[in-house]
């Protein structure tokens, strides 16, 4: 199959592989140790899937914010995203 029209690059491939990996890990995790939804600091029920979504969406905005304020590169923004995702999984 010719995928050249999609214009793949190594960084975007890594980006999507990371997200796919995260999804797979989440699925395996939820099969191994099923978790009930819980109510966190946002005062509504979240499942691990919800928390992943909140982490990813939030990270996207963290990166955009970083780009707007400081510009590339995004290494420090990625660190912030990571910390943010951790806290989402811990407290939300």
């Amino acid at each position, binding site marked *: 199959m010719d995928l*050249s*029209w*999609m*214009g*793949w*690059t190594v*960084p*975007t491939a890594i*980006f*999507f592989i990371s997200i796919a990996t995260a999804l797979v890990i989440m699925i395996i995790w*939820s*099969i191994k140790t*099923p978790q*009930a*939804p819980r109510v966190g600091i946002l005062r*509504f*029920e979240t499942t691990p899937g919800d928390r992943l*979504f909140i982490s990813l*969406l939030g990270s*996207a*905005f963290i990166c*955009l914010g970083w*780009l*707007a304020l400081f*510009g*590339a590169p*995004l290494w420090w923004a990625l660190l912030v995203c990571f910390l943010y995702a951790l806290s989402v999984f811990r407290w939300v």
Partner: protein
Amino acid sequence: MNKTHNQKAWFMVLPVVLLVAFSAVIPLMTVVNYSVQDTFGNNEFFWVGLEWFEEILASNRMHDALGRQVIFTTTILLIEIPLGIFVALHMPKKSGFWSSICLVLVALPLLIPWNVVGTIWQIFGRIDIGLLGYTLDQMGIDYNYTQDSFAAWVTIIIMDVWHWTSLVVLLSYAGLKSIPDAYYQAAKIDQASRLSVFRYIELPKMKGVLLIAILLRFMDSFMIYTEPFVVTGGGPGSATTFLSIDLVKMAIGQFDLGPAAAFSLIYFLVILLISWVFYTVMVHSDKEAGL
């Protein structure tokens, strides 16, 4: 609350998952790929990193378009939601001839294709041959949506209100119809005023459908393209250039796939965020209602 998961059920939804993958995920991946590259044809791509994102985030054009978009969406929500409720409240409640007539009349604007709506208003508003424009002009009101930003805004907002208030009306009407008579009877007995009836009975009962109406109108108006494009082309100047108009100019007009892809992604994220907030609020409030 522990739910047991039967993993085999997944196979049932596999066709749908594949369909979604092809229709949504693959294009989205392509957009992400394009957003970090530059191209001038022949399927040749050149890596530029996050340049487009930086450029767009710093671009006044984008900020202005976003600002206009927010003002537009807020304005039409502030008009259409109350107006829709108001109209729904005054429609005949009992099923019958008159309520059918009203429903058909209300639904009519929704049946007109978007570009036709734009064309209708473009002509309607012209001061030489359009009924609205001509009337206003004859009344001595200085109205020319092609030159005056304010007139252009008013035209587009009225057009959107004309086109979409019906949706709010229909949803609100459905919500109102679901209120049992007993509530109105009780309110009569309690000597509640009309306002109290609205505030304490109708509004709470319509909350669910209203949230859907707001969400739909939000998403639609946030992505509005065809109608203002047909009427004003985003002008005069950039007065009515909303996000999608700007995006289409970039993607189709300039064939600038890279910047357009980056723009699309930012646009997508904004809509995703707001929609997610709406969705969460809706589900959350439903749970609170014990439904």
